[in-house]
Structures are given as C-alpha cells and as structure tokens.
C-alpha cells in the first residue's frame, strides 16, 4: 500500500530547477532510501514531504504530493498538522537546550497535552521506542545538550515519535555519528518500520543496502532508478546507477 504519492514534481529554487519530473510512490511500513551524489536533490525532495521547504524564499513547486490520497500542497491543508503526521530527523542532532524530559514533551505540549501523568507516559514510551530509555531514565531532568552525539540523535528520534507521526523522514541521520551509534540507529530504523513509514537519505551505500526495502537513485534532480533495494544494487537497469554504486562515478 502506498503512503505517499509523488506525481510530476518539479521544484525550483528561484530559477534553479532542483527536482525534475519526480514520480514516486512510497510504501507504508517500508524503509525507502534516497541515494545519489551531493547536490542531486535528495534533501530537497525529503523536505517537500513535510513542507519544510516552505521556509525557503523563492522555492516553488509544480506537480503533486499526496499523503494517504490528500494533497499536502492543497489550499486548506494545515501545515502544522502535516508536520505532526510527517516527522523529521535532521542530519545534525538538534535537541533543544532544555531537559531531556522537556525535549520529548515539547511536541505533545504543542499539540495540547498538558496532564503530567499523560506526559510522563509519552516520554517513557517514546524513549523506549527509540531504544534509549534504559540509558536516559535516570537523567530525564538533565540537559539534553550533555548527551553524546549518538544519544542526541536517538533523543531526536524519540522527540519525533512523541507526537505519534505516521511517516518519519531522516536526512542523513547517521552522517555525524560514530559506527556504534550508527549501528544502533540502523537497528532502530528496522524496528520502527513496523509502525511507521520511513524515508532516509544516506550517502552510505552499505547503509541503504542494510536497512532499506526500496531505493531511489538521484542524479541532477532526476530519479534515475527506483526499485527494490536488492534489485537496484545487484542488477541496476541504468548504466549511471551501476557506475555510481560500483564507485566508478566520475
């Protein structure tokens, strides 16, 4: 079943066309990986899915993106509600400068949850789902900025989970982390896909192969190839894909 449907999407930063006629359907409860060289539009596409590109002046699109059949660029769509449904984890871990507890409670409070007991429950559940409860349960009231980079990133995942999203977007979530933290996040992603639809940008081909079900290869704003991960890596159809994954890309 497809969760997100992208049709004939063109995106421009002022005059620069960053995405060219992208068509893609992203399956629910799967991990979809975006790969491709720097500047090919991976981040741009992932940001169209929760409309973070609204912040960039001069950015405009044509074509359509739907979430469960609803046009997310439609006139009466509530952007804040969309971003609640489509969560995002950034490349650089960005916990807020407040306690671990307040970081997790930030989203629920934003959406009207204020009862202490309820918040306590959400905080525990989110941290558990992000596989970091055990490490943090005794220091919930300490500043989140004191955590290691890997812990911070998992905290950010927990923070995103706390608003009960349906889709989780991750833009190079492990590029700032050490191998052990990376492995933990990958493992976590595999667990999360049971309940969420995941989209992950990565520069690490091994990572795409290890965790994703479907992979899209981008080049200069175009989707060159989009298929099952195993197929894409073992029998790429397009010559350019093959060059890229074998490292022969000039």
């Amino acid at each position, binding site marked *: 079943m497809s969760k997100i449907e992208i049709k004939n999407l063109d995106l421009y930063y002022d005059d620069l066309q960053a995405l060219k006629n992208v068509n893609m359907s992203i399956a629910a409860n799967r991990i979809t990986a975006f790969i491709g060289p720097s500047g090919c539009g991976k981040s741009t596409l992932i940001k169209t899915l929760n409309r973070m590109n609204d912040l960039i002046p001069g950015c405009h699109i044509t074509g359509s993106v739907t979430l469960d059949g609803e046009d997310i660029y439609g006139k009466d769509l509530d952007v804040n509600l969309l971003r609640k449904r489509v969560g995002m984890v950034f490349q650089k871990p*960005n916990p807020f400068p407040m306690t671990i507890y307040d970081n997790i409670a930030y989203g629920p409070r934003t959406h009207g949850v204020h009862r202490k007991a309820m918040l306590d429950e959400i905080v525990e559940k989110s941290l558990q789902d992000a596989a970091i409860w055990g490490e943090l349960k005794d220091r919930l009231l300490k500043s989140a900025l004191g955590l290691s980079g890997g812990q911070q990133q998992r905290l950010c995942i927990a923070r995103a989970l706390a608003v009960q999203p349906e889709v989780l977007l991750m833009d190079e979530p492990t590029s700032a982390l050490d191998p052990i933290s990376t492995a933990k996040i990958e493992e976590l992603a595999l667990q999360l896909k049971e309940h969420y639809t995941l989209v992950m940008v990565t520069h690490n081909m091994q990572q795409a192969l290890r965790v994703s079900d479907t992979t899209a290869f981008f080049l200069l704003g175009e989707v060159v190839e989009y298929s099952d991960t195993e197929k894409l890596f073992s029998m790429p159809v397009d010559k350019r894909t093959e060059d890229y994954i074998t490292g022969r890309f000039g």
Partner: protein
Amino acid sequence: MRLKERVMRWVFAASASVCIAAVVLICVFLFANGIPFFKKYDLFAFLSGTTWSPDIYDTGKGVYGILPMIVGSIYVTAGALLIGGPIGILAGVYMARFAPKNLLKVLQPMMALMAGIPSVVYGFFGITNLVPMVREVFGGTGFSILTACLLLGIMILPTILQLTYSAVKAVPEYYFEGSLALGATEERSVFRAVMPAAKSGILAAVVLGIGRAIGETMAVVMVAGNQARMPKGLLKGVRTLTSNIVTEMGYAADMHREALIATGVVLFVFILLINLLFSILKRKGETA
C-alpha cells in the same frame, strides 16, 4: 615585516594597559577619597540613615543617611525595567525573527540613534513632555518616581532591544526548524525553542539595562524632583544616588564632600555587582 609586527604588538599592549590603568586609577581615587569618610562617620548609619542633612553652614552637625537615595535608585531602576524590559525584549525578538526586511532597515538605524542621544536631551524631552503628561493624568507636580521610571524605561530600550536582538539572531536556525518539524507554529517555535536558547543573552541584556538605569544621572535629575527623603509614592519626588552626587557636588566641602564621594563608592559597588552578574550570565551562556 617582523619589526612592524613587533611594533604593532607593542601598540596593542600599550592601548590595553591604558584602559586597565584608567579603571584602576578610578577605583583607587574613589576608594582613597571615600574611605576617610567612614573613619569619621559610622558606615551603618550612613547606609541605613533616612535623613540627609548636610552640614552646609559649618556647624558641625551634618547628618548623612543615604537610605532614601538607595531606595530611590532601586525604585527608579525597577520601574524602568518593568517598562523597558518587556517592550525591549519583545521588540528585539520581533526584529530578529518576524520583522520584514524593509522595516528592519528603518528600525535598526533608529535604535542606534536612540542609543546615541545624549541623556540631557532625554531629560528635556522628559521635562517638556512627560512631566506635564504625568501632572495632567495623575496629578501632583509631575516631577516624580513615575516620570523618572517612564523616561528611564525609554532610555534603556535600545540597550535591551539591541542585545536581545543579537542574542536571538545568534541562535542556530536548527532549533527553529526542529520545532516546526514537530508541528509547532512559527510563533510557538520562536517563543518556546528559540528564546530558551537565547535565554542567557536576554538575561544579560536585562542586566545591562539595569546597569544603564542605575547609573543614569542627568535625565533623572531633570524629572525626578530630587527630594532627599524616603520616597512616599509613585507620584512623589525622589532622589537617586547619582542625582544626590550631581546636585550637591558643586558647592559641597569637607565632610559633606566626602559623604558625596562615599555615595559614589556605594554606587560603584552596585555597578560592580551588576557587571559581575553580567559576566557570570555571559559565561553561563557560552558553556550551555
């Protein structure tokens, strides 16, 4: 090249030394001239006395209690902060996060100008506008604590606004984005994610505003009434530590003169404490 570098280094070091020497000299002068007073007059009586009656006719019966001025300074500063603090902070946040570029182009030079206006000009504005306004609206003479608070509130605005602006501007964009990505509105993101990150900077802005308010002299002298007695209400006149010095220094002699210098010492200690607080907050902000 080598020589030029050496010379320049020497010039830098010399400039720095001049600054340090100036500060040290002021301290030494102030304390050297202020301390003798406490040999003749009880420190406690000086700080807690409510009567200020200098020995102008040389009868040897001067009473020097500066509690009214301490309280006056605190009242006026607190009032100024109550007025200028919230407005300055909110305006600074507005300029840093919400104001359209065109408006910013007008506002920024205006704030710089406002910070540069000499305080005697503010004082004139106070006398010609605020004093009559307070007199008409609230009664009394118009020369009052309230008037001083209003005027000082306006005067500390640019300080608080500009520092708040820089503090908020310095917050990395990823806090804002992280909050938006959770479904928060832009306003909520600014107030709940960006502002907490700028907290220590904003506090520092407030502390510096306090420093400005407590040290302000000319404008306060012009609108506050300057009665050396315990302040009795918002609409009554008041004398601050600074105005005490400036109104009487011209004709004071001997013990009276020393008492005024001692008032300066007290003021200096206040400012020292505020600056200490400021640097502690700043350091905390850098490590957080």
